[in-house]
């Protein structure tokens, strides 16, 4: 990997994160919070597909994934996104590598795998729940039941699956836009 590749990673991470940031602003409205793992993979897929056309060497997707995890840590979303992004990034890298860094179908799947880190943002809310309840027994069983009903544990795998499926939709959308605009303009 040369300096130019690393700079490319930085540029596309910036575009990707700005999109994540704008969508996350919506997440401030609680109803939209579970929708983040739907919206981010779809819209993030557009710059990510363009990024994949610049990927020619091993490690570029992986590094971008790790950077997303670090950014989540820096912006206060806890460590699970970083832990997941280190692995999902590597898998995404291997998937795209198996297509010799140019297969279009593999690129779409890569976006699906890459998007898994978005769902990891919810992990602390599921994981630490028990500890949280232990300290709030005085709130009564009503409160505990009401909140667990809205955030049941089975939601946890569902958010991951949603992120993966929406990542594939986002990848297809990205391919479509790329054919329509970027290839003509000569930047893809």
């Amino acid at each position: 990997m040369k300096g130019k590749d690393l700079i490319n990673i930085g540029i596309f991470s910036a575009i990707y994160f700005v999109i994540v940031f704008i969508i996350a602003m919506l997440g401030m409205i609680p109803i939209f919070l579970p929708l983040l793992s739907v919206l981010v993979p779809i819209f993030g897929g557009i710059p990510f597909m363009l990024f994949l056309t610049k990927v020619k060497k091993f490690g570029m997707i992986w590094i971008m994934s790790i950077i997303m995890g670090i950014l989540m840590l820096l912006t206060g979303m806890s460590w699970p996104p970083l832990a997941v992004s280190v692995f999902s990034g590597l898998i995404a890298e291997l998937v795209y590598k198996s297509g010799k860094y140019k297969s279009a179908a593999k690129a779409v799947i890569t976006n699906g795998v890459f998007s898994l880190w978005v769902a990891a943002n919810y992990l602390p809310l599921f994981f630490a729940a028990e500890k949280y309840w232990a300290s709030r027994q005085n709130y009564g069983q009503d409160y505990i039941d009401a909140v667990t009903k809205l955030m049941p544990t089975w939601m946890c795998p569902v958010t991951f699956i949603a992120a993966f499926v929406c990542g594939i939709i986002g990848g297809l959308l990205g391919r479509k836009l790329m054919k329509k605009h970027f290839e003509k303009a000569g930047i893809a």
Partner: protein
Amino acid sequence: MAALFTADIENRGLVLDPRTKLFVMITLVIFALGGTGSDISAVRYGTIAVSILPVLLLMTARQYKKATVFGILYALIKSAEIFLVPNITGAELSIIGLCCLIFVRLMPGLIMGAYMLSSTTVSEFIAAMHRMHIPQQITIPMSVMFRFFPTVLEEFTAINTAMKMRDIRIGGKNAGKLVEYRLVPLMVCSVNIGSELSAAALTRGLGTKVRRTNICKIGFHIQDIAVLLLILTLYIFWILGMFGVMK
């Protein structure tokens, strides 16, 4: 919005070492978000104290408006959690309860993140990463990224205005093209600016094999020690609580 990601070097008040900020962030993640040690009352009060710390830090960085807004918001949600939640039932309980559950835990970290991004310069950040022996493969993309954020946001604002003029907005005539007509121009101009930026970065020695020097002086000062002592107290409470010395 660009001020969200870049530090104003001229007027930023008290300067903390980036590593201190990172440590505060990790502590907030462990105690406020992770809820560690919340069965020990000393830790619980300590966590509240540490959760207010980011607001105070924003004050020291002379970002009074941001600090006030975040401070009031946090105080409102925290008091709602303490006083309102035990006294209500039914549908309100699930909605208000869930909001409290999520925001009380997320907000301290988010405020700290806002402080961190808006008070650290790119040079300081890179110097700190270098001292922590983070490899170049991570630091170069991150420094480019932080340098690039304001540019992307500026371009996005301009594109957004242009598209609003063409009635491509939520509730406008061409709402269906909302996303495509914003993201595509944004990416085309970002890629072009990016290739200029990478030429500029190469002339500054990024990506060469030699060791880069940095004129930025970072180090631990009295204010860092004060913040670190406060945080360490919380850890001590936690350890003492685990051995049953404190409750």
